[in-house]
C-alpha cells in the first residue's frame, strides 16, 4: 500500500508558495464553518474537487476513497440522533430523527469530507520540505515544523510495515475477519507489537542518520528549495479572503445556508 500523497506534477497549484497553500486551506476550513446547509457545503466541496482537477491530483483522493466514504457515512448516520429538529420523521423509544437533523447530518458529513479533501489538496501539491519551509516562514519553531513534516513522511512507511506484518501473521493462521470479540483482542498483540517495535527501530535509525549528517534542530541551515511569492499567490489569497467575506455576509446578514440556527 502506497500512502505517499505528494503527486509530482507541474501545475500552477504546485508552484504556489507553500505559505499561500497553508493559508488557503485554513481559509477553506473557515468557509466550511459558515454554513450548515448541505447544499451550500456541497458547493464548497465541488469547488475543492474542481481545484483537485486543476492540480491533476484526483487520483490522490481516489486512493483514500474508503476513508472519505467512511467519514461521510458515519457523520450522516450518527449526527441525526444528537440534534433536535422541528419536523419529526421517526420516533422510537425516545430517539427521534427529524428532517432538519438528517440534513444537518448530511451537512456535517460533507463538511468533514471537505476538510479532509482540502488537507489532502495541500499534501498532494506540496512537497514535505516545502511544508516544513512554509511553516517555518509562518513563524512555527523549527523543531515543531520538522516533527510535523516527519510525521507526515513516516505515515506511508509505517503503513507499509503494517501491511507486511498483517501478511506475515495471516500466513500463520491469524484470522482478521473473525467476528468473535475475544478473537479481536487476541489479534491485537500479534499486529501491534511488531508494528510498534519496527516503528521504534526505524525512528531510532532515522535520528542517528539525521545527526550523522550534521542536522541539529536549533542550528541555522540554508534551504535548497526557496519558495517565491508571486502575484499569483496574492491573487489566490485575495480571492479566498473575498469569498470568505462574502460567505460571512450571506450567513450573518442574509441568513443563508442555515438548517439549524445557533450552530456552526
Amino acid at each position, binding site marked *: 500500500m502506497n500512502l505517499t500523497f505528494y503527486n509530482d506534477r507541474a501545475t500552477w497549484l504546485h508552484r504556489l508558495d507553500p505559505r499561500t497553500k497553508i493559508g488557503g486551506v485554513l481559509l477553506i476550513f473557515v468557509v466550511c464553518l459558515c454554513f450548515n446547509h448541505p447544499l451550500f457545503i456541497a458547493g464548497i466541496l465541488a469547488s475543492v474537487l474542481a481545484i483537485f482537477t486543476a492540480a491533476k491530483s484526483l487520483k490522490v483522493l481516489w486512493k483514500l476513497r474508503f476513508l472519505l466514504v467512511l467519514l461521510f457515512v458515519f457523520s450522516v448516520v450518527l449526527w441525526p440522533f444528537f440534534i433536535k429538529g422541528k419536523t419529526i420523521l421517526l420516533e422510537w423509544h425516545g430517539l427521534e430523527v427529524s428532517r432538519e437533523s438528517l440534513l444537518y447530518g448530511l451537512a456535517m458529513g460533507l463538511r468533514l469530507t471537505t476538510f479532509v479533501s482540502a488537507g489532502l489538496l495541500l499534501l498532494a501539491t506540496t512537497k514535505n520540505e516545502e511544508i516544513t519551509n512554509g511553516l517555518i516562514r509562518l513563524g512555527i519553531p523549527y523543531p515543531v515544523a520538522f516533527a510535523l513534516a516527519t510525521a507526515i513522511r513516516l505515515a506511508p512507511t509505517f503503513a507499509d510495515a503494517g501491511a507486511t506484518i498483517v501478511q506475515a501473521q495471516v500466513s500463520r493462521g491469524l484470522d482478521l475477519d473473525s467476528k468473535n470479540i475475544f478473537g479481536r483482542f487476541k489479534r491485537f498483540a500479534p499486529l501491534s507489537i511488531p508494528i510498534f517495535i519496527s516503528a521504534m527501530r526505524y525512528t531510532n535509525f532515522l535520528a542517528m542518520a539525521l545527526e550523522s549528517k550534521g542536522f541539529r534542530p536549533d542550528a541555522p541551515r540554508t534551504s*535548497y528549495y526557496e519558495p517565491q511569492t508571486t502575484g499569483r499567490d496574492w491573487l489566490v489569497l485575495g480571492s479566498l479572503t473575498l469569498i470568505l467575506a462574502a460567505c460571512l455576509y450571506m450567513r450573518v446578514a442574509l441568513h443563508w445556508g442555515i438548517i439549524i440556527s445557533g450552530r456552526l
Partner: protein
Amino acid sequence: MTSSIVFDHLSFSYQNTTAPALQDISGEMSRGSFTMVMGHSGAGKSTLCCAINGLVPRFLRGDYVGRVMAEGMEAGKNSVPDMARAVGIVLQDFEAQLFSTNVELEMAFGLENQCLPKAAMEERIHAYLRVVGLEELLRRDTATLSGGQKQRLAIGSVLAMEPPVLVMDEPTTDIDPEGRHHILSLIRRLRTQERTLVVTDLDAEAAVQADQIWLLRDGQLLAKGRPAEILTDSSLIESCGIRPLATIALFQEMNWPGQPLTVDAALAEIENQGLLRPRRPEGRNISVLNHGKVILETRNLSYQYPAGSTNALNDIDLIIHEGDFVAMLGQNGSGKTTLAKHFNGLLKPTTGYMLVRGRRVNSYRRDELPREVGYVFQNPDHQIFAPTVGEEVSFGPRILGMDGKTLERNIAEALDATGLSGFEDKNPFLLNRGERQRVAVASILAVKPAVIILDEPTTGLDYVHQLDTMEMLKRLNQLGHTIIVITHAMWIAEAYARRSILMKEGRILLDGPTSEVFSDETMLAAASLAPSDLIRLRNRLGLAAMTLNDMVKELKSEAVSPRSF
C-alpha cells in the same frame, strides 16, 4: 602516510548489558586508505563504525573507555553533528536513512545543514549523483527506487558533504546481486580519491580489494593486515564467522601451492603450474529431479498489482513436487516473492489458477491452508510479538485449533528441529538475529506444513548462522518437508537446492536441476546473476560437483599428477 583515524584502547559496553561490545581496540587507519572491518554478527562491527563519528557514545550510550580520533577531532568529545565535518557514515538500514521527497532533496539535506548557498548545493548534487550513477533520477520519489539505488543514494548524500572519512556499515547487505555489483564497483572508484574508507562486510570476496582488513571477534580486534595475509588463513576467518574464499579453500584442500584470491588468479595458477590437465567438460552427473506427488501447481498464472499498469507475473506454469528443495532466484522486482505469495494464498492470481494438492487455493478454508503451506517472512521482527519463545511458537498451532498433547508435541519438535530446545522461556526480543530467524521458522514449523517457503532466510546472518539455518532446512527437507527458498545468496542455492528457478521480469527464465542452471552462466547473466567463485571455478574446470567437499573428492579421484610440485 598520515593517520586519519586512530583508535586508542577503546572499550565500550552498551547500557544495561554486561558483555562488552568492544574491548581494548587500538589501531590506525591512514589517510586515503581503504579498511574492511569483518567479523561475525555481534562482533562489534557496527559499534566500531558508530564510534568513529561519535554516535557511540553520544547517541548510543554506555561505558566508554579510551579514545577515537578522526581527522584530528576526538569522537567522544564532539557532538555528532560536529563530527559530521570529518566523518560521513552510511548506516546499515538504508531504508531508514532516506526521508526526503525526491532524490535531489535527499542529496541536499546534509548540504543545507552545512549552510551552503543554493548554487554550491546544485553543483555538488549534480557532481555526486554522477559519482553514484543516479544523475538520471534527480526528481524521482525515493520510495520508488530499487534497494541498490536507495543504497547508492544514501552513499551519495553523505559523499556530497565531502567528508574526509567515509564509513559504510554493511552497504551490500539486503541488496540483490546486481545492486551489490554496482556498490562494490562504486567503492572501488571511491578509493582512488583522497578519502579514508571504512567498510564492513560479511563477504570475503568483497574484501579482496581493501588495503587492510580488521578482523573482529566478540568485540576484540583479533587480527589486522593486508588481504593477502588475512584472507589466506581460512581457519582464522572461519572462526570469525566469515565464509572463506573458495579459491583459497580449494587450494588448501588440494594441497596445491599458491594462494590465489580471485578466480582468475586461481585459473592462472592452475595453468602455470600444471595442476590439472586441460580437460573438456564431459559426462557431468545430471542430478535427477524429484518426481513425487505434485503439491503446488500454477496454470497460466498472471498477476497485476492493483495500482500497477504492467503484469508482475506473466503466464507462469510451474509444478512443484513433494519433497523438493527449490531455490527461486532473480533480481528484486523479478517476481519471485509475488509468485511465492500465491503459493499460500496471500495473493490471488489476476488470471489463471493456483492449485495446492490439485485444489484451487480459493476452495481452502482459512485454517486449512497454513497447514499445507507455511511462509516465513524475510524479517523475523515483522512477526515476533510474544513475551516468550514458547508462546510465540505456539501461536500458529493454537489459532488453528491444536491443543493438548498434539500442541505440546508439535512445539517440542519445532524447537528441536530449529535447535531452540531449552529456549521456551526466553524472551525472543533478546535473542540475536540468527536466533530470531529460527524462532520465526519454528513458529511456522509447529503447524507442520507440508511446504515451507522462506523469503531471504539468510539476510543479515553471518556465515555460521547461515550454515546453521541451511543445515536446519536440509534436515527438514529430509524429514519430508518441501522447501522453497527465495534468495540472493548464490552459494546457498548452489550448495542446498536440488532445483533452481530463475526469474526475470515476471517470467520464468530457466527452471531445472541446480547443477545445470548454474552451468549456464549466459542465462544467469541474462537475469543479472553470476555464480559464486567456487562454481565459476567448477564451470571453468569442467567439474560436476556443487560443493567444495565434492569438488575435492572429484578432483582427487581423478589421480591428477601435477608436473611441478
